[in-house]
């Protein structure tokens, strides 16, 4: 018997209640955790390859108390922040220019398109050569990994500002400068923030890469060192911490989006 399209949870693009959503979300997190526990506790996979969840928690605690976790976390956050902010500061004006003025687009985009296809990881040796093994080389890798993409994505965000908004301002006597500051930027702002959220995720990826190749501190370095000493439990702890950090900052930027752009909230 055919059922009405609105019935059931598995209707195509159907709606479910908040409680049901939470239920499925918890299931989605718990099931891999369960599989992990079973695999490690039954000894199907030896502990040297896969320690149990409790081992990982215990190992994490040792890391916090005896092995300077807070220092690792701080230095990593500092590197990401510096690299990302440097990238943002330069990419924002360039993206605005490239999305607004054709000559700027022609000048910037083909060149950046070329560079962005070079893997940021491949720049690590060059950055070490130029900046040494200190902090600047890690920041530089994060910068290279995000900057070129950011300019192109910002320019795209800016190009999506409806022409009618720009023309409306022109017929009100707006100068190009006024239109960039008072129409194009505020109009593109929500999309620009979303681009930041996406590229900040990439910045973390490049941080870990940079720390694995050339560092003696930080989360990525700790994970790599743990592998050398076969501390699989610490590798697990490091990966989970990096994942949670990403989740945390993603939620933070979503929250910022919600606060900054009240007009986009669903009524």
């Amino acid at each position: 018997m055919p059922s009405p399209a609105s019935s059931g949870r598995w209707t195509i693009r159907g709606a479910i209640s908040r409680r049901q959503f939470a239920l499925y979300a918890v299931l989605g997190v718990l099931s891999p955790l369960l599989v992990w526990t079973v695999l490690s506790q039954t000894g199907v996979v030896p502990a040297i390859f896969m320690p149990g969840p409790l081992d990982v928690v215990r190992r994490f605690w040792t890391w916090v108390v005896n092995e300077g976790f807070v220092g690792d976390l701080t230095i990593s956050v500092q590197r990401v922040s510096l690299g990302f902010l440097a990238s943002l500061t330069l990419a924002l004006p360039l993206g605005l220019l490239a999305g607004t003025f054709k000559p700027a687009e022609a000048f910037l985009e083909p060149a950046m398109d070329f560079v962005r296809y070079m893997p940021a990881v491949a720049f690590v040796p060059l950055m070490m050569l130029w900046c040494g093994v200190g902090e600047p080389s890690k920041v530089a890798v994060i910068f290279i990994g995000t900057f070129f993409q950011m300019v192109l994505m910002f320019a795209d965000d800016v190009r999506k500002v409806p022409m009618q908004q720009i023309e409306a301002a022109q017929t009100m006597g707006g100068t190009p400068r006024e239109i960039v500051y008072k129409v194009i930027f505020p109009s593109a702002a929500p999309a620009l923030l979303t681009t930041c959220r996406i590229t900040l995720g990439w910045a973390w990826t490049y941080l870990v890469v940079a720390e694995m190749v050339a560092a003696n501190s930080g989360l990525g370095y700790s994970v790599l060192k743990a592998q050398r000493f076969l501390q699989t439990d610490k590798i697990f702890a490091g990966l989970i911490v990096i994942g949670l950090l990403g989740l945390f900052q993603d939620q933070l930027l979503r929250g910022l989006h919600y606060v900054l752009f009240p007009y986009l909230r669903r009524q």
Partner: protein
Amino acid sequence: MTNAIEIRHLCKSFVTRRRTTRVLDDISLSVKAGELVTLVGASGCGKSTLLRIVAGLEVADSGAVLVGGRPIAGAGVDRAMVFQDYSLFPWLTVKQNVLFSRRLAANLHDNLALERGAEEERARKLIALVGLAAALDAYPSQLSGGMRQRVAIARALMSKPSIILMDEPFGALDAQTREVMQDLVLDVVAEEGTTILFVTHDVEEAVYLGSRVVLLSPHPGRIDTIYDVPLTRARSAAMRVEPEFVALKRSVMERVRETVGLSHDRSAVGA
């Protein structure tokens, strides 16, 4: 008395890599101050292009547009424009949208030089005029399509432009809302005395609103016929079924259809 708008021998072509398409061919038209002239025609007749040239958003190849006796140079605060949709600033409330032009330098030294308090007051008055007094602090996303166009009209009126150019402003609205909005435009003209050049593809709308209806023929766009509307300026919904109204509407519609057949370049795609 000088005309509010004087269009002289305007020509415009669009050049693509493959061909040059003439969109407007020797258009001349005068609009008196306080007049509401509607432009109709089949697609490809260049009516929107003509309006955009008068607005200063596009440049003609030859010919001139004079506003208040002086040739225009680009867009200016004396000519406001109302677009079909998506022209409101979504991050601003209704009141902030209407007041937006006051944040631009071009409007600070204009002949009205509204003072702070007076600006607010005029914005409130205009928002009330378009019937949105209750939605002063709403965002565009909270409004219906018709309400958004009301805001666009109030915003266009804010700087006291001598001319408002309307480019199919009600094209995206449903039929009932459209009729209400048409009466609103007539109220605005009565209240503010603004000259209006109004582009539409809806012949009934053109006849109902216009003191004159200008029919453009397509490919290339030329002025085909100018109809004087034999009705008083005070229009009302009842006029829509009067014999004179219906007769004029029918003859304009028939002529629009004929001009498509007369098209000089049938292969050109509508611009």
